[in-house]
Each structure stands twice: as C-alpha cells, then as structure tokens.
C-alpha cells in the first residue's frame, strides 16, 4: 500500500516554493513532516484533498521563523531591505528642501487623483449592486412613422409586462415600475404629497434591494400592502415598528388604507431606481383606464426583464418585431414600432438612450474628470522625475564611487527605486488621507454628492498605487543615473548625468497641461457666465411658483385643470392682500423647467408639425413683461379671448409659415374654434441648451387639444400660481406663503419654487464641471509651481560659478536674472503654443452642447498665458534674485 502512495507526489510548484523560502537547516524535517501528512491524506481522502492540504501547509509554513533571511531576501532587488531603506532615508533627510517639494507635489497630485477617481468610481458603480445585473435589461420603445415623427422612450406601455411574459420564454421574469404623486395622510388632516412607486410584485426577485423587515423576495402579502424605506418608516412612524401599521393614501379616485408589510433599506444613491414608498402594480387595473392599460402609445412604465441563464437577449431581439406585428394589426407598418433592450448597468452613462424615470449622467463629464485627475497625477510624477534628474548632477559622483566599489547595476537601480517608492508611499498616505478627510469640502465646493465608505481591500489598492507611482516616477532617474559611465563621471565635475532634452520635454508637457487647464476653466467660466446673464426675454427676478392641485381626482384632464385653476384663484385672492406681492398669473408651466407640453398634428398639406403650448390667464404677458411684436394682448374679462384667442411666438409664426398671422388659425383641420390675436417676441422659455421652439399661448386648451394627434410632456401641466415678490427678505415671502396657504388649504402641504433658482439649476451640471476643473486647475498650477521652484534651485546651484564669473566681469543683477529666467522661457512658450489648438478642439466639443454659446476668442488665451507667465516668473524670481546677490568671491571659492 505505502509503496503505491509513494508514486503520488504533491504539486511541484508548492515543493519548489518551499525549497525557495525555507531555511536549509529546517528544510529536511519540515518537508518530511509535510510529506508524511500528505501520504496519509492520499490514503484517506484521495489525491485532490491531499494536494489541497499540502499547498495549505506550505503556505502556512511560510513564517518568519522558517524563512531563509540571510541570502534570498537580501539580494532580491525588489525587496525593500533594511539597507536600502536606511540609505534612502539618509539621502532624503539630507536634502530636506527637495524631499519636501517632492512629497508636497506628489501628495497634492494624489489628493486630486483620488478625489476625481472616487467621483468617477461612484458614477461607474451605478446599478452594480444587483447580483443578477448581467441578466437584467431595460426595454425601450422606438417609434418611427416617417417625416421625422420619431418617438424614442425608455418608458413603455403597461401592457408590455403581460405581453413579454406570455411571448418570450427567454425571460425568467418581467417587472415594471413607475411613480405617481399621491397625497399620503401623515396625521389627522395633514396630507403630504409623496412620490409613490407602483411596482410589480416580483420586483424583488429581479433586483436585490435589501429588506430590513419583511419577506426579502416576496414582500407583498396582499393587494393593499405597502413597502417603506427605512427613512420613510421613521418619517411616518418614528421609532415604532411600522410592520402591520396602516397608512392612508389618496390614489387616483379613492382614498385607500394600506398596510405596511415590509421595510427596505434606503436605496443607495448609485441606483437608477429610486423610491421610498412602494405599492403593488396589481392595482393598475383599478386605478387606470383602458387607454393606459391597453394603449400601445401611452408610455409610463420602465420595463425590466431578467433573461434566463441559458438564453440570450439577441434571440428576443431577432423575433420581437414579428411578435409585435401579430398584435399591432393593420394600423402599424413593419418597423414603425420597435422594441429594444438595454443592459441595466448601461443605463446611467449611456447618452444614446433617453432617460427613463430617473435622471442619468453625462458620460463625457465623467471621463473628462477621470482624465483630468490622471493628468494632474501625471504632472506630479513628471515633477518628481524632472527634479530627480536635476538632482542627479549632485549625485553622479556618489554613483561613480559606488560603481567603483563594485555595486552592481541591479543594486543601484533598486537603491534609487527605493527612494522614490518611499517618497511615493509617504505621499500616498498623506494624499489619500487628505482626500478622504476632504470629501465634505470637495462636495461643498463642487456640489457633487460623493460618499466614501472604507473597505479593507482599499488599503491594498492604495498601497499598490503608491508602489506603482513610486516605480514609474523613479524609473527614469534610476536608469539615467546607473547607466552613466564611471570614467565620464569621475573625470569631469560638471556632467549632468541625464539627457537634457527629456527634462525639457517634461517641463514643456507640464506647462502645456497647466495652460490647457487654465484656458479651459476660463472659457467654461465665460460660457456659464453668458448663460446666467443672458437676457432670456422675460423678467424672472424673485418670481415664486406655487403648484396647485385639483379637488377632484378623476375625470377629464380639462376638468381637473379647471378645478386646479379655481384653487389658484382662491390662493391668489388671499395673497393679493400683501402689497409686496404683485404680478399674479396662473400658468400651466413655469419658466426654468424643461419639457413643456409638446403637441403634434398633421397639417392640411399632410406634413407632421409640432409645437409647445402653455395654458395661461390674461395677466401672463404683462406679468413677465413679454413684448408683443404684432396684434394685441389678451383682454381681461373678454370672454371671447378666454374661449378662443391664442398668441404665438415669432418662431411659431415662421414655423407654421404664416405671413400675416393676425386673425389666422393654426394650419390643421381638426382644431376647435380659435384665432391668433397677437405675436410675442421670442423668449427663452426652456434652457439655452436648446433653440427656441414654436410656442402657442392660450387661455383655453380644449380647442387646441381637439386637433392634435400626439402629446408628450415631462413637466406637470397643472396650473402654477406665479407672482413676483418685491420685498427685501426671501424668508418673509416664505412666511406669508405658508400662512396664506394654510388658511386657504389647511389640509394640503405647500410646495413652491423660485424661478431664478430653477433657471440656474438648468446649468447646474455645467457649473459643477467648471468648479471641478477649476479645482484641478488650481492644483495643477500648484504642482507645476513646485516643480519649477525645484528646478530653479537646481539650475541656480549648478550655475553658481558661471554667475560668479559673470559678476566679476561686470554683469548687472538684472542681466543675470534675465539669463536665469530665459532658461525656461522657450519651454513655457512652446507649452502655451501647443496648448492652444488642443484647448480650442476640446472646448468646441463642449460648446456644441449649447444652442447659444460664446465664441472662444483670443482674449482667453492672452489671459491664461499672462497668468502662467506671471506665476512662472514669481516662482523663478526669488531664488534667481538671491543668486545674483551672492558675493562672487564666495561662489567662486566653493569646492
């Protein structure tokens, strides 16, 4: 038996590893013991288990007491042995100025890199928390009826859920969700408008949102069950256990009592699905009408599918059009109505597919920030490299001496790498520490919401990053130093030991990136300033918008609209008593929100036309001081105006091809009785990203609705009461509003917005990007200055004698300063020149996002060049100036 087992040997690599590390005097019996246990295991459990045991034991035996410390580790060049560390510490300590500059530069670079990196990582981490994420797709609907009648939506019809379940066996599960705003009873008569999610009962079998209480995969036990987030559980029930308690919600038509069946953990910020209150979408059947439930073009739901483990989404794509055609019948042509699928993890950063229920991010911004973080780190590394090459002038003799005494090249390289790795690790520690401590400041400064939670593997990541940065930054100087021939070093006292051009290229590169960042920041600043100060064509200073509600929950849209408008009247009557409030008007949309009602119709010639519409009262034009270019305003109390008059903007007049618009009609055949009474000058009612679109202003929407074929709106079309506040304190308007609101509608909670804030928010993303780049610019200026300072010191030191001789011969201080300043001037000039085309190209890409934009202009480059020159001169001047002041006798006597 035993003879047989002798033929089975443990894995070779494990044996070899053991031989490599183990002290020779311990090896024989140790290996014998392990082999004995191995053989025993082969007999009892078989070869596989024995192999596992052997590997485990070899790894476990890798202990300090068993390692052969004398030979292997000390000569191994990658190990930071005590000797190398000791020398590195001495060298770094000796040149404190240089070391401080190096550590400072790298620390700042790493700080910037880590913060930008965390931001990018957060953006990339969206929707990664679901274990089945690779099999989850979101459906989208692409409709193309020719003539540019394209409707592309990530929200889909309700009937897709049953349809997909029935037709596509590839799907393990199909779920839908969407949000409605319903009033929730907080206590007694106090109702709060909340966004309530209606989700499929199987929702949690697809997504892994964690449950705090209740069934994790099947939290709904009945039809009228409710799921709360932890935060909302506390909001409504305080410290009590919410499970089993009831909460009353005012649904579309009825008031229903729901029972809390589960509490889930608050959904993290990096999820594309966000809700705090959820009820089962089995209720859709009772809540919504035939059109919503069965319509092919009423879209509201995000539909997610979970594909079977052994199926592929492509097989669904291949047949989906055929399946749809069997349902659609004769009203649709083939390929007019198509369904596609997008990966769950693709949703947040894919600009090709429109956003669904939640907002998405602009991937360009994420990548731009990632690249900037990387560039800044690169500048910092370049800094280290240039400074070290510079320092090699001083150290050349040391290298020569070491070589003469027999130091091998490997040893020398490892010595210098040790130095740079020590510097990098110290900087890494400081940089990451500061970055993490500085996250709140970063958030405040840039307006992003960065959340960092430490995990142990991050330590390894940071350590690895530090090693990498240290090796990269130290690689070149280490090889330059060690490659120099001994004789050339020892013979001449002034060999530089490095190639000048490499250093010059690096300095130029540094200047280039810095100037690029300065110019870009300035141009973005200019564009954002332009957006914020552009005359939008109406007066929106201190205008407040208060959305109203309808008293009836059901019925036609126009009836509910009228009810809400009556409420606006009530509120206005009460608010009017306050003299500091003026310019009251009620309007279906307020400025500063995109997605005003979008309507389309087929005109008499058969072409497809679309426009936006806003429902207003007679005060609207005056309240915002819009200019009429033709015709007249609505007359107050004129019932004909209230019934049928409309006003167009200039763009609409051009778009509809009306040469003489007054008393004309819109060019469609099915519209109700209406006539154009006036034309207003174009004004920017949506953000400046978009061109001004045709707009119809009316007091009565019904005749227009009669003639249209398609609608879509992202902004709620229910009336808002708008008014201007002329007092001094914005807090006062809040008090008045709260008082009057609770007097008029005691049971409803108040919402209001300032229009100027909404307008500023449209450019929030751009402003945030600008701030982030501004921070990066400051940091890169700082790093480049540190590098320049270090280089100046080195240059001044190496030209000490030259300066002395020049002074003796009679050069003035100013001449010598000029001489020193010229050292970097052409590198700076080259950096500036190269940065210009790069900046223009980058900024043009960015500016293309805006319909209204500034020209880039030469002035920005003049300013950024001036800034960089002034900073460079300032940095150079101190040390150069000092050098010119030194008594030449002193410098000539040195050595």
């Amino acid at each position, binding site marked *: 038996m035993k003879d047989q087992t002798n033929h089975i040997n443990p894995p070779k690599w494990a044996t070899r590893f053991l031989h490599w590390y183990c002290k020779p005097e311990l090896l024989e*019996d140790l290996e*014998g*013991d392990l082999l004995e246990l191995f053989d025993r295991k082969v007999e009892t459990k078989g070869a596989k288990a024995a192999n596992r045991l052997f590997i485990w*034991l070899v790894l*476990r035996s890798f*202990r300090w*007491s*068993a390692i052969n410390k004398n030979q292997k580790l000390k000569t191994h060049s990658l190990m930071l042995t005590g000797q190398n560390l000791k020398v590195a510490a001495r060298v770094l300590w000796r040149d404190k100025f240089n070391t401080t500059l190096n550590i400072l530069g790298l620390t700042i670079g790493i700080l910037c890199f880590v913060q930008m990196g965390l931001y990018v990582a957060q953006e990339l981490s969206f929707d990664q928390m679901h274990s089945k994420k690779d099999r989850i797709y979101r459906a989208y609907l692409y409709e193309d009826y020719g003539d540019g009648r394209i409707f592309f939506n990530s929200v889909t019809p309700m009937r897709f859920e049953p349809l997909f379940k029935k037709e596509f066996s590839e799907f393990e599960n199909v779920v839908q969700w969407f949000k409605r705003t319903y009033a929730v009873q907080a206590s007694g008569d106090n109702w709060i408008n909340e966004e309530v999610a209606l989700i499929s009962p199987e929702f949690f079998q697809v997504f892994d949102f964690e449950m705090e209480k209740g069934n994790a995969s099947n939290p709904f036990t009945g039809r009228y069950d409710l799921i709360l987030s932890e935060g909302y559980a506390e909001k409504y029930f305080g410290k009590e256990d919410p499970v089993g308690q009831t909460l009353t919600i005012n649904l579309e038509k009825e008031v229903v009592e729901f029972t809390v069946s589960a509490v889930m953990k608050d959904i993290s910020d990096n999820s594309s699905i966000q809700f705090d209150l959820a009820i089962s979408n089995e209720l859709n059947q009772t809540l919504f009408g035939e059109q919503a439930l069965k319509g092919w073009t009423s879209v509201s739901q995000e539909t997610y599918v979970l594909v079977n483990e052994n199926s592929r989404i492509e097989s669904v794509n291949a047949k989906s059009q055929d399946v749809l055609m069997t349902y659609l019948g004769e009203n649709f042509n083939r390929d007019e109505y198509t369904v596609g699928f997008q990966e769950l993890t693709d949703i947040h950063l894919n600009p090709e597919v429109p956003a669904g229920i939640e907002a998405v991010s602009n991937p360009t911004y994420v990548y731009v920030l990632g690249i900037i973080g990387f560039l800044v780190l690169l500048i910092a590394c370049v800094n280290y490299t240039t400074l070290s090459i510079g320092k090699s002038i001083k150290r050349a003799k040391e290298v020569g001496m070491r070589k003469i005494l027999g130091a091998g090249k490997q040893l020398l390289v490892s010595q210098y790498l040790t130095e740079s790795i020590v510097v990098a690790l110290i900087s890494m520690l400081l940089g990451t520490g500061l970055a993490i401590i500085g996250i709140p400041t970063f958030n405040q400064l840039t307006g992003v919401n960065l959340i960092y939670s430490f995990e142990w593997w991050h330590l390894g990541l940071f350590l690895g990053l530090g090693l990498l940065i240290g090796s990269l930054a130290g690689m070149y100087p280490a090889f330059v130093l060690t490659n120099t021939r001994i004789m050339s070093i020892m013979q001449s006292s002034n060999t530089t030991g490095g190639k000048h051009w490499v250093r010059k290229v690096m300095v130029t590169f540094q200047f280039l990136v810095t100037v690029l960042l300065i110019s870009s920041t300035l141009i973005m600043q200019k564009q954002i300033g332009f957006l914020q100060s552009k005359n939008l064509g109406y007066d929106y200073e201190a205008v407040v918008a208060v959305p109203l509600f309808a008293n009836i929950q059901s019925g036609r849209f126009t009836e509910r609209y009228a009810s809400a408008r009556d409420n606006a009247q009530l509120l206005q009557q009460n608010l009017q008593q306050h003299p500091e409030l003026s310019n009251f008007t009620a309007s279906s949309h307020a400025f500063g929100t995109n997605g005003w009602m979008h309507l389309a119709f087929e005109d008499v010639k058969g072409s497809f036309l679309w426009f936006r519409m806003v429902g207003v009262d007679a005060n609207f034009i005056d309240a915002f001081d819009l200019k009429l270019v033709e015709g007249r305003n609505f007359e107050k109390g004129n019932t004909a105006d209230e019934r049928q008059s409309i006003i167009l903007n200039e763009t609409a007049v051009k778009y509809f091809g009306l040469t003489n618009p007054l008393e004309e009609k819109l060019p469609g055949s099915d519209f109700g009785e209406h006539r154009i009474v006036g034309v207003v000058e174009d004004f920017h009612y949506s953000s400046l990203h978009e061109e001004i679109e045709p707009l119809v202003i009316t007091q009565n929407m019904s005749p227009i609705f009669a003639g249209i074929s398609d609608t879509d709106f992202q902004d709620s079309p229910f009336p808002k009461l708008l008014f201007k506040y002329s007092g001094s304190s914005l807090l006062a308007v809040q008090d008045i509003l709260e008082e009057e609101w609770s007097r008029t509608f005691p049971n409803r909670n108040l919402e209001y917005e300032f229009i100027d804030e909404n307008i500023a928010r449209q450019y929030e993303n751009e402003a945030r990007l600008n701030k982030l780049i501004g921070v990066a610019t400051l940091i890169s200026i700082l790093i480049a200055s540190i590098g320049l300072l270090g280089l100046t010191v080195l240059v001044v030191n190496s030209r000490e004698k030259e300066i002395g001789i020049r002074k003796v011969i009679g050069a003035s201080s100013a001449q010598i300063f000029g001489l020193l300043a010229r050292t970097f001037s052409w590198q700076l000039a080259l950096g500036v020149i190269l940065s210009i085309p790069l900046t223009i190209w980058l900024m043009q890409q960015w500016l293309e996002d805006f319909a209204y934009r500034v020209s880039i202009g030469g002035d920005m480059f003049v300013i950024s060049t001036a800034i960089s020159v002034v900073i460079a001169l300032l940095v150079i001047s101190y040390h150069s100036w000092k050098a010119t002041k030194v008594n030449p006798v002193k410098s000539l006597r040195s050595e």
Partner: protein
Amino acid sequence: MSSGHLRFSAVDKKNNMKGETIGELEELVLLTVGALLQEAYAVAILDELVEKTGRNMDVTAIHSVLRRLEKKGLVKSEMRGATNERGGRRKRFFDLTPAGRAVLDETMSVRMELYQKLPKLTFFGI
C-alpha cells in the same frame, strides 16, 4: 506562594526576554515532548495532541511552537531515523532539556498548589 504573577526562575532570562512565561500551547507541546520520550517529532506530537485534546490544529502550528521552545532552550533536537516513508527524509526528534523539565515541574507545582486551595465541596453553579 500567593496567586497572581507566575515566574519561572529556571528559564534563562538572558536568552529570551519573553521567556518568563510559556503559553498554553507551548506547555501542552512541552508536556507531549516529555511524554513521548524518544519518539517526539512534529507529526507524532500533532497526533497525540489532536487525540488527547480533540483540538483541530495543523502541523505548522506545532513547528513554530517547537522552534520557539528550542530557542528558549526548553527542548533540544536531533535528526535521525531515515526510512522509506516521507520520501526518505529524516525526522527531527525533540527531547526535554533540564531547563524544560524544570519549567514543567514549576508549572505543575503552581497548578497543584492552587488546585489544592479549591474548596472540597463546590456549590451548584460555581
């Protein structure tokens, strides 16, 4: 002798600063080395300990304890007994040194002394 700080004068303090006390596993291994007489090598000690204490441990722990004990001068070792098993490798056999024996005696006597002080009858739950 009062309870509390235990000192083992037998241990050579110059050799080992930490050697003033030995840990529980060290004590067990030391005892086993003594008990196995001439047959004490790592695997045999492991088997004995696993059998007697029912503890789940692996041979590397025994190795490191033995090295520690040897460094403290409580055991000495010699290589012998090459056989066809174990790929022909010899075994490292351990034996107690007088110092090791003294440490064991000291530990045992302290234990016994303390044990004797326990009341003969214990109450339930104590």
